[in-house]
């Protein structure tokens, strides 16, 4: 599991994205400094941190960072 705070820390410190919790619900293309390649790196980092596989195909369709978080924490 990963908490929302840890998720935001990962986005900021590992992915170098200048985001806060308020940005999680934004559409990805409006997130500052966002690039589609970030999604691939985010998948790798999340799998490493949570120790569980992500449904890649669905992550790639995720509209927001919050949606990615939901997929990473879905039971």
């Amino acid at each position: 599991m990963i908490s929302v705070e840890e998720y935001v820390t990962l986005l900021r410190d590992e992915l170098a994205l200048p985001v806060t919790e308020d940005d999680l619900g934004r559409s990805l293309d409006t997130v500052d400094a966002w690039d589609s390649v970030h999604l691939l790196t985010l998948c790798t980092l999340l799998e490493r941190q949570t120790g569980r596989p992500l449904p890649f195909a669905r992550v790639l369709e995720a509209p927001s960072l919050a949606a990615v978080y939901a997929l990473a924490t879905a039971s």
Partner: protein
Amino acid sequence: MSDLPPAAEWPSVRGLLAELPDDALPRAGRFLARLDPAEVLAAHPATPLVSLYVTGHGTLAALRPALTVELARHGLLAAITLADFDAWVRDLADPGSDLYATLGKADGPAFALAVLGPEIVAAELPLPWRADDAARVLDAKIELIEKLAGTFAATANGATLVLNTLPLPRELTAQLLDRRDRAALGAAWREANARLLRLDRPEVAVVDLDPLLAEGVCARDPRQSVYAKAHLTDDLLAAYAREAAHLARQAAGAAKKVLVLDLDETVWGGVLGEVGPEGVEVAEGYRGEAFTRFQRVVRQLGSQGVLVAAVSKNDPGPVAGVLRDHPGMTLRDGDFVQVRANWRPKHDNLAELAADLNLGADSFVFADDSPFERGLVRRELPGVAVVDLTDEPALHVAALLRDGWFDVPRLTSEDLARPARYREEDARRGFLESFDSLDGYLAELGTEVRLAPAAPAQLDRVSQLTLRTNQFNLTTRRLSPAEVRDLAGDPDARVLAIASADRFGEHGLVGAVLLRRDGGVLRVENFLLSCRVFARGIEQAVLGAVLEHARRSAAREVRAAYRRTAKNGRVAGFYPEAGFATVHADEAGAEFRHDLTRPPEPVPHIRLSADFGGQQP
């Protein structure tokens, strides 16, 4: 690095990265990739810039942070252009493509990285398929790549095309059930990779991915490949970026020349001062064998022109004893250009060694197992590359070879002879100390200089001089082997090689003069001399011969330029001291002319023979 560093702090980035473990580099790369190279250049105009045009098969965006951080580890600023998705064939085949336009505009070393993965073959297999089908696709792909390399060589003047071997995924081999057919696929695949590796063009470098994969880097993540068309993993791209950065470092002229080794726990196990010569671990026992393995690799590097020196906190007597008499040693005193065993700080020893060898300390690689000594050298001599050895000697070899510090595009006969030459230089210095004045020494030295058009076999060495010479390099214009070859074939230009010898031996090819004839003007485009031989009158004698040649061949004047760098300040006055008038001068450099009315000053202690290869230029 936990925050975006401001562009103004770029000069500190290299030092920060040197302290980071490998697994922290991707993260640092993501931060650095957000820096705008233009802002860094605005704050620090002298930052060496390398242009990289990334093209290839599939999604390669992960290369941007990876290349940024790997080049930054060597102090290089990466200007990266990512091509359109999957445009590599068009990019390389069309001389009017964005790739060639971008490389053509590059100021400084420029690379096209064509990153290819197994999918360029897999995507074209019929269904069903057999090994024969794969062999046919592989043949066609390699032929295409060979043709594209030809176009690149003819179009991208001076730039380098970086290709890579194709990893062979088990997902392909395991689809063939017949054992012989599966083996045939493996053989055909390796033959294709071998053809790539044999692409022998000065404009092409092939990164062999096999050794990286053998270290345990995973080549593919099927999900990333299927869903995101990222056919090679971030880990493999990071390892690839490290190799590409080594190529960039070579092209930027930042080659390392000297390997300085600590002794206790680096070259042998144990502390000599405590355990005595009989107690050091070498050749025998588990740890002894590990140190011998390291010594063999050091000797192997030394045989290819790396100057090896030792700096150790020890008494000199016992160290000399071990190097001379210990039966288990692979490295002997003759393998070192200098052994400094004393109790003074290591950075002082390194600085003196640099002065003795007439090299900059930034051409040094320093390997030590002590974090204290490494930290002190890093702080006092930031240009020195420091190799982190641990208390596990079995890992010494991997640590030493990790960054390809001494890699060169082509090893020349000069490289092979270099260590012996520097040892002769030590003898020469002893000889110097027996004279009251430098003039008396030079007169007794009996220096002979030959100036002649560079023979085809010498052109690689001339390129290497332009890449590696930093101090006596009047313009520091780096030239690839291909560019030197073009210049040698240009009827208006001349590539002259300077060779010298003295009573202590042959120096070989030590310098080059690049001339261009433009009507009545003879232009010295660059003048380079190895730091081993300058300040002995060779440079004045050669310039005198050039002026004499200009006068005899009815030139109106000789023009020459100086372009200032951080390293070549000591030659700023070279042309004015030889009677040239300054046409204009500013902070970036100066332009000079010699009207040929006064003859050059003779240099009586040099015997010079000059051949300019006919009337032109």
